[in-house]
Structure formats: C-alpha cells, structure tokens
C-alpha cells in the first residue's frame, strides 16, 4: 500500500501515526482504540505497567499481528506512505523500512556475529546477486556488493562494540552483547523507524549507559526510534516523547516531564483506586493553583 502524501491528515514530521487501533484476542481487548503518533527524528517511548498491551502494539506495527481495527500509517522520508496493518511482516521491513528487535532476544545463534548482520542485508544482496543466478556465475557486481555488505556490517559492529567478536557464534555472546547485536542487526536493514522491545532489559548500569549513547547516536543520524521500556532511567533520559498505556488504552502522552508528573501515570504505576486518582488530580490542580497565586 503506497500512497503519495497529499491530502493526508498527518503532518510531514509524523513518521508513524497509529489511529484507533484495536486488537482483540477472543474476549480480551488487548488494545482499545489507541491513537498516537511518533515524530521523525525523535525517540518515542511506549511505557506502561505489565500487560498494558505495549508488545501487542509493537506486533501490530511490525505486522506480526493483524489488528482487529484501526490504521497504522508509516510515512517514509521520500513521501511514500504505507498502511502497515495491510502488509505482511517481511514487507514492512523491506519496503516500509520499519525494523524491530524482540523482547526475548532472537538471534541466529548458530551463525557468526558477522553472518547475522549479513542476513539482515538479504534483500539488497539478493538483488545484487541477480536472485542468486548471477552470483552463482561469479558476477563482479555481486562480489562488490558482498564486500560492501561486510563493510557495513563491520561499521555496525564497531558501533555496537562487537568488532572483536565478529567471527564468534552469536549464541556465544553475553546477554548485553546479544542485545547490542540485535540492534545492530536491525540497523543493517536500513530502517527509517527502529522499534525496540525492552532494549535495556537485563543490562547492568554501565551497559545501560552505553545503550543510551548508542540509541541517541542512531537518532541523531536520522533514524527515528520507537521503544518499549520498563527502565525509567532509560526512558526519562533519552526519549523525546512518551506514550503511556494502561489496559490497552492511552492514559498519557507528552514530554517525559509531563508524563512523569501526570497523576494518572503515577496512579497506574503505583496502583491506586479510581477515586484516589481523582483526589490526586484535584490535589495537583490545587497545588498548581497555589503556586500560580
């Protein structure tokens, strides 16, 4: 589904707009009428308590689930628009340029680190090898492209601080290194939007810090990020925009500061009753009023 941007409602700086997304599993409404946007060149974080439906949103965006209702619009840099809810998963990565990582790491553990990154460049190499035929005959175009692919892989290995492990099996890496490799692998597909499902889970503070630097540098080079994260230090530190989910619905949306002070969010995370939320809201409002006066 490619459309030229012309009369669309979204502004050009919105890379991803999710509109009225609902996902139902049997009797369970995992996502209920969710709308939010992610802006180009920003890090958007999707947070919420366990079971809020964050990973379900991710699976809908990346095509692993077909949403029951709603629309997911991806606007590429060149103006192409893709309606992700209609595309099969591999086309979302290939044509709509949305890459993802997984909550439980999914590397090709029996392939080497380098090979993992080469698999990620499959479509480009496939074209260069004339869909295998020219490559089998030893075409120079393929040889050149294969060399370029290795250079690109080496670039991302360096960025992920894995260069000296390039020829080791991916399954042999430590947990933190596997997380970094998964991000590097996703980046090798040349995405415009990178979706990370809990990239900081299981990392120690030092690794977490290095991850922040990596993600920021990826953003500064022009790839927008959408991430699910539990680690608030990561979220508050690096995101430009935070969307909070609870029970499949959006309860807050804004800058990290705004979200941090939103009583609804505090209530969702601390788990208080509804009337207490109202109480908290009125309290905050009265405080604001007091300060104003």
């Amino acid at each position: 589904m490619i459309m030229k941007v012309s009369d669309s409602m979204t502004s050009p700086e919105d890379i991803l707009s999710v509109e009225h997304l609902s996902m139902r599993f049997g009797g369970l409404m995992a996502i209920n009428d969710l709308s939010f946007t992610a802006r180009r060149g920003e890090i958007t974080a999707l947070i919420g308590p366990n079971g809020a439906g964050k990973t379900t949103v991710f699976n809908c965006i990346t095509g692993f689930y077909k949403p029951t209702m709603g629309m997911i619009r991806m606007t590429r840099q060149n103006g192409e628009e893709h309606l992700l809810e209609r595309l099969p998963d591999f086309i979302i990565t290939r044509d709509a340029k949305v890459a993802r990582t997984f909550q439980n790491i999914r590397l090709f553990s029996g392939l080497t680190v380098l090979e993992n990154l080469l698999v990620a460049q499959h479509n480009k190499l496939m074209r260069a090898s004339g869909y295998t035929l020219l490559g089998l005959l030893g075409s120079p175009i393929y040889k050149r492209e294969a060399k370029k692919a290795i250079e690109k892989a080496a670039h991302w290995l360096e960025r992920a601080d894995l260069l000296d492990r390039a020829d080791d099996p991916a399954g042999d890496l430590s947990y933190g290194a596997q997380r970094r490799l998964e991000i590097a692998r996703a980046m090798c597909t040349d995405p415009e939007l990178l979706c990370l499902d809990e990239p900081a889970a299981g990392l120690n503070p030092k690794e977490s810090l290095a991850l922040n630097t990596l993600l920021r540098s990826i953003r500064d080079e022009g790839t927008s990020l959408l991430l699910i994260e539990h680690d608030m230090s990561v979220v508050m530190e690096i995101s430009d925009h935070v969307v909070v989910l609870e029970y499949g619905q959006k309860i807050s949306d804004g800058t990290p500061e705004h979200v941090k002070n939103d009583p609804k969010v505090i209530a969702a995370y601390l788990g208080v009753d509804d009337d207490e939320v109202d109480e908290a809201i009125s309290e905050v409002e009265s405080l604001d009023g007091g300060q104003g006066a």
Partner: protein
Amino acid sequence: MANTVLDTPATEGSLVGKAIKEALFTGVMTLGLFLLYIGFRTDQDISNTPIVYGRPGLLAIFVAIAAVGRFLMVVFVQPLLKARKEAKAAAVVQDREATFFKKHILKFALVALIFYPPVIVSLYGFQGSLKFVDNFGIQILIYVMLAWGLNIVVGLAGLLDLGYVAFYAVGAYSYALLSSYYGLSFWVLLPISGILAAFWGMILGFPVLRLRGDYLAIVTLAFGEIIRLVLINWTDVTKGTFGVSSIPKATLFGIPFDASPNGFAKMFGLPMSSAYYKIFLFYLILVLCLITAYVTIRLRRMPVGRAWEALREDEIACRSLGINTVTTKLTAFSIGAMFGGFAGSFFAARQGFVSPESFVFMESAVILAIVVLGGMGSLTGIAVAAIVMTGGTELLREMEFLKHFFGPDFTPELYRMLLFGLAMVVVMILKPRGFVGSREPSAFLREKKAVSGSFTKEGHG
C-alpha cells in the same frame, strides 16, 4: 601434586571396591526385575491346571551378565571415556594447526576417487572390477548425491523432509518414461528430470509452508507415499508394479555402450565388456556429485544460502529482517528436489529398469539417516556417513565367511537393518551432532572459526 601421587593407588583400590559394590547392587536389581519373568515359567497340563517350572539357571545367567557388565563398565569403560574426554579438552589448542594431511584431505579423497576405477581394473581385471565399481563405487556415490541434495532441505534450511525419495522417483520415472515414449536421450532428459523434480518440490512446498516440525514431517512422508502409490496404480503410463524396463543407456558424446559396430568397445578396438559402461557411469555420478557439492558450497555463500541457515535458526527473526520466508523455503525444497531428480534419472540409466519398489519409505529414511549421521549441513561428514551406511550394507553381502560360524542358513544381509540401527545408536551416543558437528561460517572478517554444533539449531520445520 604429591597428593595426587599418593591418591592414585587408593583410588585404584576404591575403584574396584566401588565396582564390586555396584555390581552386587546391579545383580540384586536384576534378580528383582527378572525373578518373575525369567525365574519362573508357567504352563498348563492336559487338565488345564497351571504348572510352574523354576528356571534358576537362566535367571543366574541374566544376573551374572548384568553384574559382570556393570563391573566391567565401572572399572574399564568409564575411566576410558573419562580419559578420552580429558584428552579431548587438552587437545583443543593443538587442533588449530591442522596437519598437512588434514588440510588437504578432500583433495586426496578426490584424487583417490578419480583413480579408483583404473586401480581396481588393474587389480581384478575388467570382469572382476564390476562388483567394486558398481556395488561400492556407484551405489555409494548415488547415496552421497541424494544425501547432499537432502542436506539442502534438512541440514541447511532445517525443514524435516521424510518424503525425499519422491523426487528421486520423479527423476527416475521422468527419464524412464520420456525416453521410452519419446526416445529422448539421457543428456536431454537429465536436466529435464531435474527441472521436473524441482517443480514437484515446489508443489510439495506450497501446502506445507505453514506447517512446522512434526506436522511438516508427516505431510512430507505422505507426499512420498502418494507419489509411490500413483506410480503403482497409474498402470496405463507407468506399468504399475511391473515397472518400466529396457530403459535406454546413457551414451558418451553419442557413442553407445553396446556391441554394435559404433559401440564404445569396437570404436576403440577393445574387447567386449560390460565394465566400460559401469566405469563410465562411475565417472558420471562422480561429476554429478561434484556439481552438487560445488553448487551447495556456492549457495551457502549466497544470500539465499544464508537465509536458509537463518531460517533454520529462527524463522520469526528472518521475517523481521525482511526475508520472504515463503520463497526461501520453496527454493530450498525445489533445489534439494532438483538434485534428487538428477540422481533419479542417473539411477534409471544405470539400472535400465525402474519400479515403485525402489522408492519405498525406507529409502527416504536411509537418506535422512545419512544426513543426520554425517552432521547436518556438513558435506564431508555426510559423504563419510554415506560410505559407512551404504558401504557397510554392501560389505555385509560379502561376509560369506560368517556362514562357517553360524551355519549355512545364515544370511548376513538379513541382519543389515539390525546392525544399521545399532550403528546409528552408537554413533549418536558418541557423536550426538553427527560425524562433523561444527559448521563453517559462510563469511568472516578476520579469522575463519568453525561454529561448534552446540550453538546451531536443528530447525523446527
């Protein structure tokens, strides 16, 4: 260090003591287990009253075997295995500097294969060489080729295919039928058989794409049976169980291998012998095998080959990287099937006769066993496994001397499957990942390091 020296005699003594204790325990266990099964035998007499015989002698033999076996296991076998394990751990460092022989083993093997027929002929004469070239050479190479073909599907793409023999059958019948109905030559039909088999590989591929693991295995098994049953029952075309006979032989650049004046023997002024054709076939299947190996090695370094291996490791991750898993699986099925088809048409040209009997499930199982035994994905390992499995069964036919021990009625071939199964169990215990368990990376940045088998996955279908 002093401690260990002092300890050695003590451990030796305690080892025997431990062994005796375990042997006694095993004996008691065996006694308990077999007391009622072996120790007594019930029967009935003429008035249907039960009689119980005691069989203390037999029971004692069972108990003794178990106890002595346990004793030997503890005293001799276990220390041996332990020592081997330790030696292996210590040898890892030296392994890198492979010896000259080890490095060039494949070249040696190829040279040996090329010179195999002339050496055999010079040793046994043309007539005597038939058995060695045909039974050992060609037979083994056919299985090598089939196993290498199946390796693409099972070893690389991780799709468990129990019906591979169907493509072998498609290839064989393509040649048999098209040559007898339309008189086309072997060299025209060889590629056509491969293409037809690849086509059937895709036909099989489409419905099973959504299936994984056990379900995939069952459907491929059914597919193999369907092809065989069609061959049996479509009697108008395939002549059913009678099979297709007098299939034309392959020719060498148009020179037939027969007694005619244009035949190979007359042309070169050689005495008539059927050995020329067999030797020609040997080289033909050798070339076909080499093509299979070459294409497989090249494909592994192509994006599609890497995608196959990635598919074996994790299909969902493949999809998340923009790989079309449908076409990737279909190419694996069809390329694997194509090599099966080539082997099939060669088989038909060699036998001069095909019938559905040759394409039973057992053949699929043997080919799959060769792939698993050799180490999934490893061409060298699979070739070794093919030699062991097919060569081993052929050797059993030669074991005529066993009749001296077991009497003239003893036919060693009948024990073939028993030994086959036993060998597989032993190999799988000692080498659970097959003869060659490690995989060679398809690309490297600084240094090529083999990936240990413990990291690779078998695929989930």
